[in-house]
């Protein structure tokens, strides 16, 4: 069983972690085309190389990011998600809120 290093809890058996999909930037839902949105929702990076993934340490409910090589399965780096997400995201529209 592989070991993954949780930025909060340290090295743990991979069985303590839950995969959360690749890290993808959400396009602006107001302006994006339907096709682009569908690509965002359904497509994942699938060429050989390093992928950025969401992982959850289940016992502590802690989400973080892992950089993993999808061919060698080597986990290159793990780090807190706030390294990637540093600013508040807003969604706006011209219409009024309910």
């Amino acid at each position, binding site marked *: 069983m592989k070991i993954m290093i949780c930025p*909060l*809890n*340290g090295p*743990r*058996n991979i*069985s*303590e972690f839950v995969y959360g999909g690749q890290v993808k930037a959400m396009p602006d839902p107001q302006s994006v085309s339907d096709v682009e949105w569908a690509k965002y929702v359904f497509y994942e990076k699938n060429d050989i190389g390093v992928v950025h993934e969401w992982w959850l*340490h*289940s*016992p*502590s409910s*802690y989400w973080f990011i892992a950089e993993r090589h999808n061919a060698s399965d080597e986990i290159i780096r793990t780090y807190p998600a706030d390294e990637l997400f540093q600013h508040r995201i807003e969604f706006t529209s011209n219409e009024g809120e309910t």
Partner: protein
Amino acid sequence: MSTNLNMVFESPLAGVHHNGHISIQDYTKKHRWGLRGKGAAEALRTQGWDLPEQPNRLVSSNNETLVMALSQREFWLLDPENDALAVAMDEDFITDAYPLFCQDSHAWLVLKGHQTSALMAKLCGVDLRPETFKIGDVAQTQMALINCIIARHDLAGDDVFSLFVDQSFAEYALEALLDARQEFL
């Protein structure tokens, strides 16, 4: 809102105490509370509590109260000397330091004896041997397939493990511990 409800406070383990070379005792009724948020550490320090230097550590502060850091911004305060006197509904909170529900959500078990780490090795994949898991260490991990917080600390002069499991799994966790304990009796 809070009230004296000690009389009706129930533990799913009904306060059991299994004696033996390794004893297992239910501490669920003992008092504990906690704070989480970016202002939690500051709020606790202001109240005069000593805090662990880093997450997943535990220190003793103010007369036997154990302060356990689960992250930079989450702290549980464990009071093994006193029963839960009041149950807070915790509607009141200050922004940045939100009261936790650990009194109600988790069962608390205390393992005491010479081979506790050997027993735990049958249930948990984290290295809990005394040479690697020191007094004051905390692990948020899994035990017998359920989530569990494991802390090693001093309790009235004894070197013990405190285990915190979701109260709905308390009976299951105790069954697993008792089963694993058989060879150490």
